């Protein structure tokens, strides 16, 4: 084996390889997958001089420990955490040179959920349908890391970090997810739709890469039964029979039969990926930036006073 590799000493609760995922295959039943907090994954790649979309490691809550076999530049960002090299404190959110054989420890998240570890050259496991991402729903891509896993690394391309230290959003104390209602809001009572966009929810500990599950009021249906299976998008808020909304994240199923009451703005999903269980959660209805039927647009997605963002208007 080449020395461009690293050994996983402590895999942590759930550490997976992630890149930009495999969009474009939903018609075959293949989820898009990919890093849940894309801006954080993009940042660690920039910090180590990788092109965007190089494969990084995504940890969950308690980090991981790695021992590279050759010197490698790494960067850790996303959930804030303590970073050490052979026990000595190292920078978080900045490039760090790790000598061959040294132990890089990514500590438990101080806040947030998922830390990202960028490695110069990227993780070079064999791609499946053009992506190295682990997909926990379908099982495509490499399995989650276990202690002792050895991961191949690619050759560094750029060599120089394209940013130095950059500000990052703090994980949310309260998660506010902007939604556009539909396509199946009509399957719920008007009261349930009001409840959905006005009441307090919280992030459930049953959340994972497939979906952000919620605790809070159950949403009553105006009609029983299931829809014939239909295509699902990233950010879809699906409501299963227990009435508790689930926000679809990267490993979501490509089709489903439970009604989708609304869709979360893509820009709000990275924050959803960093919301720890118990985080207060609100869904806020915003206008679609465009209107399929202009005369209905305002009525379908009323914008509660005080949260309307002028940028949400279609221009």
């Amino acid at each position, binding site marked *: 084996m080449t020395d461009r590799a690293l050994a996983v000493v402590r895999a942590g609760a759930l550490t997976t390889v992630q890149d930009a995922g495999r969009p474009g295959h*939903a018609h075959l039943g293949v989820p898009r997958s990919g890093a849940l907090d894309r801006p954080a994954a993009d940042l660690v790649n920039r910090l180590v001089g990788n092109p965007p979309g190089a494969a990084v490691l995504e940890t969950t809550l308690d980090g991981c420990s790695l021992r590279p076999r050759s010197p490698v530049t790494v960067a850790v960002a996303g959930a804030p955490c303590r970073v050490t090299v052979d026990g000595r404190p190292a920078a978080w959110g900045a490039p760090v040179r790790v000598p061959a054989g040294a132990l890089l420890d990514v500590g438990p998240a101080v806040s947030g959920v998922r830390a990202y570890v960028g490695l110069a050259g990227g993780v070079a496991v064999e791609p499946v349908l053009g992506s190295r991402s682990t997909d926990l729903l*379908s099982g495509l891509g490499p399995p989650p890391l276990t202690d002792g896993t050895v991961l191949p690394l690619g050759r560094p391309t750029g060599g120089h970090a394209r940013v130095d230290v950059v500000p990052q959003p703090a994980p949310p104390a309260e998660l506010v997810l902007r939604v556009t209602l539909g396509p199946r809001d009509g399957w719920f009572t008007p009261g349930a739709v009001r409840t959905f966009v006005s009441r307090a929810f919280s992030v459930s500990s049953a959340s994972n890469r497939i979906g952000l599950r919620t605790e809070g009021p159950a949403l009553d249906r105006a009609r029983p039964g299931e829809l*014939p*299976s*239909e*295509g699902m998008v990233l950010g879809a808020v699906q409501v299963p029979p227990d009435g508790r909304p689930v926000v679809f994240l990267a490993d979501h199923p490509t089709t489903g039969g439970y009604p989708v009451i609304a869709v979360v703005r893509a820009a709000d999903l990275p924050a959803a990926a960093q919301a720890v269980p118990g985080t207060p959660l609100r869904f806020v209805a915003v206008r679609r930036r465009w209107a399929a039927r202009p005369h209905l647009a305002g009525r379908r997605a009323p914008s509660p006073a005080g949260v309307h963002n002028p940028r949400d208007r279609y221009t």
Partner: protein
Amino acid sequence: MNVLPVGEDALLVEVSSDDEAQALHAELLRRRAEGSLTAREIVPAARTVLLDGLDAPARLAAELTAAHLPPAPPRAGEVVEIPVRYDGPDLADVAGHWGVPELEVARIHGATEFRVAFCGFAPGFGYLTGLPSRYDVPRRATPRTAVPAGSVALAGPYTGVYPRSSPGGWQLIGTTDVVLWDDARVPAALLSPGTRVRFVPEAGS
């Protein structure tokens, strides 16, 4: 056609039958191939086609609402043959639902030309249509925790083949050794929407 906006850059187009969904899917693929439609995903399903990653959803929504759908093109492409041993544990139940002897299930199923209406559930899992509606069967009251890979199964109007072992509630009528999904194969999926399929009873089953 009923066009429902989905988030900021997707549309769900509803039609009234499986045949219309097939025709719409074919028409949208044709438009994408000729360059008049930009969409990252075109996902057919039972009564809908989802278009995701659109660059001009408002314009397309208006256009599709007013559009008349051309009829589905004639079935084309090779027929994928899937050898089956009709030995599933639910064969007797299915024969009961159909009101025929067990041997007749294999004969009827094996004499039908199917089409992949859509995929989902797992990579490589196709929802195949082709049986007359009198042969619709319910899902099992209690799903199995593990259905073996290669199981040929029925539920509602659909036939499907489990690409890998997974929980499942469909009625199992047979088994195949065909590999539905192989990461290393190009294409990885044996079945994709529109594929014609015939199940071939293996000798002795």
